[in-house]
Structure formats: C-alpha cells, structure tokens
C-alpha cells in the first residue's frame, strides 16, 4: 500500500497529464473535429479493447514471445559483437560498417529474403526484431567499453590481470551505464521490430491484428492493438530500468545524494 501511494506521488503529474490529454482527445473526436475512422475516441478504443479481449490476449502473447526472443537474441549477439569489436580492432574495422549498412536497409525490402530463409515461422518476426534492436546494442556496448578509465586498467595490469579479467572487473562495470542506456532503447525497439515483422506475414500477434483490422477499416480495433503495443513496449522499458537501478545501485545511491542536495 505504501509503495502504491509513493508511486502515485511520483507519477501523479503524469497521470494528470494523461487524463487531460484523454479528455481533450475524446472531446475533439466527439465534437467531430477529427473523424473517428482516422482517430477514434478513447472511449471507442476502450470498448473495442473490452469486446475483443480474448483475441487480443492471444495476439499480445504472440507478440510478447517474438519481442522477447528478439530482445534476448539482440542482447546476446549485439553484446558479443560489441565486445569482439572492442577487443579486436580488425573485427571493428570489418563489421562496424556492415552493422551500419544493415540499419540503413528498409526492412520491407528485406522481407522477401527473410521469407526465403525463415519461411513463415516465428523466426522471420524474431529476425526483424533482431535487425531493429541489434545496432543500438552494438553501439552502446562498444562506446561504453571505450569509456573506461585508463588508470584503473593500469592498476589491474600491474596486478598481472589478464585481458579478460581487466574486461570483467573494470571495463564492463564502467560500460554498464552506457549499455543500459542502449538496452532501454532496444527494449522498446524490439516490440516495434516484432510488429513490423508481423506486418510482413504472420498468423497471430498484435501487428497482424492491426493489419487485419485496418483492412476492415476498424480504427477502434487498430488503436486498441496499438495501445497494447505501447503497454508492451513500456513494460519492457520499465523492466530494464528496474534492473538498471539494481545493477547500478552504487551509482544511483551517489546520485540520490546529489538530488537531495540539488533538489
């Protein structure tokens, strides 16, 4: 209970803002300033959400799986590449441009290739999620690792530490703030990526649902799915932010002191 009231205290401004935005939005639509088939009223979205809740649950579950898989694979592969680039300059030289290029290619142009490789399994959607999420992880891991303090490295070297030990005990901890900054982006991107993947062919998922419903010209249903997508994305983000707070506890404690003082 105490926690809830603290949360409320922290976020009441946001809640207020949301309420105001929703009210204005509802009014704009109700008064006919924007036709509901382009931007449906919040009340209509809510109705549609409740009406189709069972179907939406299943689709949410499907998208959740794809994004989680995409997220996890991106983290593993992205960190691995970021670390490899940090350790071996030739790898950096060779792969950084390639990773960059991969980002500049519109996903839609790649979708036929993905279809060829992965067929219509879950992996084509996971593949697109990975493609979306991969790059920010690589950049934040690589840049983060380059942000360490040389003097700490010297200290460890003087103790005869091997490269991996220096990495684990200094470079990685010092890279964590930057890495978490990237992870927070990617938490959101992987949901978007999975959705785009579903646009390119799927049998379930919120992206699939929006596409069907937009074919049906059912804007309420489209926006109710978008609403759930936002919730998913925010959920991912919040989970990462909570983990960040735990892992960087020492950092946040120091900052808290600052906030107390600077208030």
């Amino acid at each position, binding site marked *: 209970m105490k926690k809830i009231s603290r949360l409320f205290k922290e976020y009441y401004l946001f809640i207020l803002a949301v309420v105001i935005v929703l009210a204005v939005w509802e009014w704009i639509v109700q008064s006919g300033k924007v036709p509901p088939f382009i931007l449906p009223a919040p009340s209509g979205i809510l109705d549609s959400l409740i009406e189709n809740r069972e179907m939406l649950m299943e689709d949410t579950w499907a998208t959740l799986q794809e994004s989680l898989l995409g997220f996890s694979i991106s983290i593993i592969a992205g960190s691995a590449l970021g670390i490899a680039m940090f350790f071996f300059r030739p790898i950096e030289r060779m792969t950084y441009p390639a990773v960059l290029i991969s980002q500049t290619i519109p996903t839609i142009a790649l979708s036929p290739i993905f279809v060829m490789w992965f067929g219509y399994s879950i992996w084509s959607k996971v593949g697109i999620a990975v493609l979306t999420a991969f790059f920010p992880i690589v950049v934040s891991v690589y840049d983060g690792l380059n942000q360490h303090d040389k*003097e*700490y490295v*010297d*200290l*460890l*070297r*003087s*103790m*005869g*530490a091997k490269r991996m*030990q220096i990495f684990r*005990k*200094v470079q990685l*901890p010092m890279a964590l703030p930057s890495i978490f900054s990237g992870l927070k982006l990617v938490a959101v991107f992987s949901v978007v990526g999975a959705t785009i993947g579903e646009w390119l062919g799927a049998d379930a998922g919120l992206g699939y649902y929006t596409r069907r419903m937009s074919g049906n010209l059912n804007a309420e249903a489209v926006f109710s799915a978008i609403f759930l997508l936002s919730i998913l994305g925010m959920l991912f983000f919040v989970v990462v932010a909570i983990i960040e707070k735990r892992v*960087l506890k*020492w*950092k946040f*404690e*120091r900052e808290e002191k600052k906030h107390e003082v600077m208030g």
Partner: protein
Amino acid sequence: MSLEIKELSYSIKKKRILSNVSLQAMDGEFLSIVGKSGTGKSTILKLAAGLLTPDHGSITIQETATSLGAAGFMPQKDLLMPWRTVFDNLLLAAEIQKKKQQKRQEAEMWLQRVGLFEYRDAYPHELSGGMRQRVAFLRTILTGKEVLLLDEPFGALDAMTKKEMHTWISSLWQELNKTIVLVTHDLFEAVFLSDRVMVLHENGTMDEVKIDVPRPRSKQMTPEIAELMNTLESMITHEEN
C-alpha cells in the same frame, strides 16, 4: 638484487621524461626516491611495474626482466572501484590471482589493524579521503608480492595514522623481508623508513644517501634524523639554483 634498473630512458611524444637512470634495490631493502615534482618518480615506478616500456635500458625484478604482475604497485590516486565494497576492493588482487578464499582472513585482519573494520561493507563514496587512501594501501599489501612499489601511499593519511603506518610498515617489512621502493615527498618519512634514499634530479642523475640509523628507530625527530633531512633537502634544492 630485487630490483635493478640500468640506463633507463623514457619519452612521451618525443619529450624526454627520464634519461639514463640507473638504480638498484637489494633483497629486503627499503629504498625511497625523493625529488622535485615532475622529475619522473612516478614514471620510474610505472616502468618498474611493467606498465610502460622503456625506450632504452633494462629493468629486472628478482633477476628476471620485469613484467606485469611482477611487483605490487600503488598509484598516486586511490582508484577504488565505486561499485565494490571496501572488502571487495581489498580482495581485487586476490581475485585476479584466484586466491580469494585464502585471502579473506588476511584482508579482515588488515581492516582491523587500520581501524576500518566497521567500513567492511561500505562503498568508497561513503569514506573520507584519508580512509580511501588507507584502503588503497591495504589493497597493495594484499597483492602479496615481494617487491612493493609505492607512489606516495601516505600522502593523504592523517598525521596519526601516518605515524602508525610508518611503524607498522617498518616492522612488517622486517618480518616479511619484502623489498619496498617508496616515492614520497615527506623527508621524515623517507629517513625514518629507508635503508637508502635516492634523490632524483631533472637530468636523470641521482644522489644517494645511506641511512645508517639502527632499527628500531625513534619516532621522535632526533638530531641525527634532522641532519639527514637537511642533507636531502639541500640536495633537492641544489639543482634549483
């Protein structure tokens, strides 16, 4: 010979930092290096620790060419890791040598000894400047190396703790027969602790002062010690004019 430096030269970006420096420390000797700021004292220690590679000359530690991990090294800054507790900072070298379990007790003993046991699980930012330096000093001792290279380890200690530390390190050094090379600006410290004090000049030459005061030495400033301090001071100053 524990540490032997021969005709050492070192430059950064074509700027000569050290030229033709030679230095020897016997087994179990306590050697101090003093000198004006910027003469390259810290650089000598870094070279000896294997952190830098000399342009010319050789450095051997216990008869083999120096290498990383060959000596215990304490840099001028405390360099405690903000994400580790005091205790975990102390065990850093032990972790690297994969002897964390064996060293736990020793680490705790040392924390007791310098009066920081209650800060065992505190994070560095919760300590005062002096406390942090003491933790950094303990971390170096806990590397367990035969040759310790200390760069102003007591610089930030308060007068009392400093004196205590002097006595301890002195007795510890005699007990364990370690070789210590100490860079300091405190001439009393240099005289009180050392067998020999080297005065480093900007041109790379060194003056040597033997401290033949019998141990255990008095913590008071005896005329003998004051005399030696004056000698050192004039040697350091000499070049200035």
